[in-house]
């Protein structure tokens, strides 16, 4: 009994001592806290915005959203933690719905979500909160569900991929000319996340970009079945390199593939943002979607009370499809000029990424293709998407629907 009392006494002394320390420390923190607030000019009324992310800034994909969102919000005079909020690591389940509802309760007028799998949960929240605008990036259902306050957005990122492909083609040409590889050995490798339209459209446009400057190029594709799995992405890239791929690109969100390339000294065309800091010798260029124009458009529309498109497509023109700076240390000479030329042609409409004259399927040129544009859960393709010899990607809805396996691309299956 005596022992217990002694211990209790000791503990209380400790509590008291540490408490004093904390109180002093707390004072310092308290002084610092108000300094951050009240700096920026407040926008009209008490406008608030929120963003829901699948992962956090360690994922290149989410980081790209977070940066754009902060930029757009700060342009609107919003302050983090006061008038704009970012909820990270929200899974593609009830968590996303809860996060959306909490943002509503925090007074958000417009709420964004960044992951494809969030769609149903954001739609659910939208149906229950008709006074708040919900904008879901990469989703497919807004144009068929027609819920007034639910919107999808994407960008014609296939054009960005195509331009990144041009840079890859230039690099392959350089290797062929220097005798490092023969024309037949111009094999690219691609680490994809899931085998569905968004990824397929991405790697096909990348391949077509490379093919536009290096006609003998072929490509091998492997899938990780995850948006973020550093180990699998690394293994996938390494497997492709071992199989003889001389250049790697990827559509998955970790640093796995770029760092595998840097370690092996194999050139890499990245996605979602520059990886030049981690990969100074192998990073060539990266395409990415800049979401800031969409965020600004949706927030301004909400503020003005005007309608947001059910399905918004960003383009090179809107500033939504961008390329990072070319890394001269790894890229072939003349890459910057080649990209600029191709970009001008794309904007002018002189070339089309999915021009059916540029690719074949089973040795045949495509003349007609039915795509499952209206995603009713029926898996039934219902829309003719080839017009005047061009596959009209991101035209009937913002999210990609090009899901054709074309000649020259070999699918190896899943990363083991």
């Amino acid at each position: 009994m005596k022992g217990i009392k002694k211990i209790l006494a000791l503990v209380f002394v400790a509590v008291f001592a540490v408490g004093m320390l904390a109180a002093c420390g707390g004072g310092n923190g308290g002084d610092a806290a108000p300094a951050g607030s009240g700096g920026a000019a407040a926008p009209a009324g008490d406008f608030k915005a929120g963003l829901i992310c699948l992962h956090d800034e360690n994922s290149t994909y989410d980081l790209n959203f977070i940066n754009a969102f902060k930029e757009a919000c700060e342009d609107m005079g919003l302050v983090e933690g006061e008038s704009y909020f970012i909820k990270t690591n929200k899974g593609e389940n009830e968590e996303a719905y809860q996060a959306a509802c909490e943002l509503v309760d925090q007074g958000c007028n417009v709420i964004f979500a960044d992951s494809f799998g969030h769609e149903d949960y954001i739609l659910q929240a939208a149906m229950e909160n008709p006074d708040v605008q919900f904008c879901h990036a990469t989703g497919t259902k807004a144009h068929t569900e027609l819920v007034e306050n639910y919107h999808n957005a994407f960008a014609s990122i296939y054009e960005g991929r195509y331009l990144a492909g041009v840079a890859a083609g230039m690099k392959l040409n350089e290797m062929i000319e220097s005798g490092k590889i023969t024309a037949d050995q111009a094999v690219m490798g691609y680490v994809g996340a899931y085998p569905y339209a968004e990824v397929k459209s991405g790697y096909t446009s990348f391949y077509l970009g490379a093919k536009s400057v290096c006609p003998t190029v072929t490509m091998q594709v492997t899938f990780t079945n995850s948006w973020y799995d550093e180990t699998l992405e690394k293994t996938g890239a390494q497997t492709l390199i071992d199989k003889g791929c001389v250049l790697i690109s990827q559509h998955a969100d970790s640093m796995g593939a770029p760092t595998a390339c840097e370690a092996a000294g194999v050139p890499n065309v990245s996605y979602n943002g520059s990886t030049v800091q981690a990969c100074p010798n192998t990073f060539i260029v990266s395409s990415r979607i800049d979401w800031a124009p969409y965020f600004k458009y949706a927030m301004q529309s909400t503020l003005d009370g005007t309608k947001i498109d059910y399905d918004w497509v960003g383009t090179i023109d809107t500033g939504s499809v961008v390329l990072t700076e070319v890394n001269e240390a790894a890229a072939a000479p003349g890459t910057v000029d080649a990209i600029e030329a191709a970009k001008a042609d794309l904007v002018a409409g002189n070339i089309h990424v999915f021009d059916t004259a540029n690719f074949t399927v089973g040795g045949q040129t495509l003349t007609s293709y039915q795509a499952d544009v209206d995603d009713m859960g029926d898996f039934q393709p219902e829309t003719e998407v080839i017009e005047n010899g061009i596959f009209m990607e991101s035209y009937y809805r913002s999210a990609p629907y090009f899901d054709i396996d074309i000649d020259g691309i070999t699918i190896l299956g899943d990363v083991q």
Partner: protein
Amino acid sequence: MTNTAKTPLVHITRRKNIAWYRAWIVRIIAVILALILCGIITTFVVHINPIEVYKTMISGNFGTARKVWFMGQDLATLLIISLALAPAFRMRFWNLGGDGQALMGCFGASAVMILCSGSMPNWLLLIVMFAAAIFCGMLWAFVPAFFKARWNTNETLFTLMMNYLATQLIAFFVVVWENPKGSSKIGIINQRTQLGWLPDIGGNKYILIIIVAVVLAVAMFIYMRYSKHGYEIAVVGESEPTARYVGIKVRKVIIRTMLLSGAICGLAGFMMVASTNHTLTTTLVGGRGFTGVMVAWLAKFNPFFMIITSFILVFLGRGASEISTMFGFNDSFGSILTGIILFFIIGCEFFLNYELHFRKSAKKEVA
């Protein structure tokens, strides 16, 4: 026996019994100490007033009516899974398969929902979903229990392995039932028709799972405290030879208790699919099968104390998430704080089970 040896400065003996109010004083002191340490770290590492951080934690749980409901819903889900684990652990059967058993419950319920919607009236659909969920949960618990009872296999490893089997099985079926094609996700099942969804009670869609959890907690308390089964579980847990000596069929108790454990995990899965999430993913249970072990142990398998311990864990989790939103950190900072608090809470169990004796009073205290 310490007469001849030189007495050390401190020595440790096992505590026999500690009055419940003393135990709670120790626990409260532990929490206060943890909060103080968190406060110091918050102040000196991220330069934020810790009082603001604690306020944010509280508002993350109680800030709005809806947040309270969400918290209650999360608490209820965790509590149901913890209640499922309690009898097995009481029996000293290390059921680390709560995740897998609950996932299989989700699987059973959603399989029926996807394959049978529209082919039967909604009330029948719900019953079939319920039965399928319970069956799948029980199946996943029965296999390791049977092997343990029959061949004395290691249940810790076995139940753990069953988790991976469940995850892989569901990964496979998510691709089979994916919507849209190639996306590897199922999304909300029957979002428009709401077939196979449990009804809202009085317009409140959060309360049903809370009611289920509370009823289950009371039932489990009675079962463990007053039923013959509960007594048998306790005896098997204390000592198998004793149980055998007094004529308890140990094998039967093991299998029966694990079936109960699996069935309640299946129920948790059913509630997640039919009432809260309406989907199937490999991460739906989200490690609650492991968190539940902590909930059950900290509460010494008392269902009512488990309400408190699961509340603490849910409170910390939701609070941490709110901190990251309001102060613009990622989840890691909140996790650090949660880790510190849990360390203290678990660490103080040492002081509840053991007594420290300082040199002078040592001899008198040894009893």
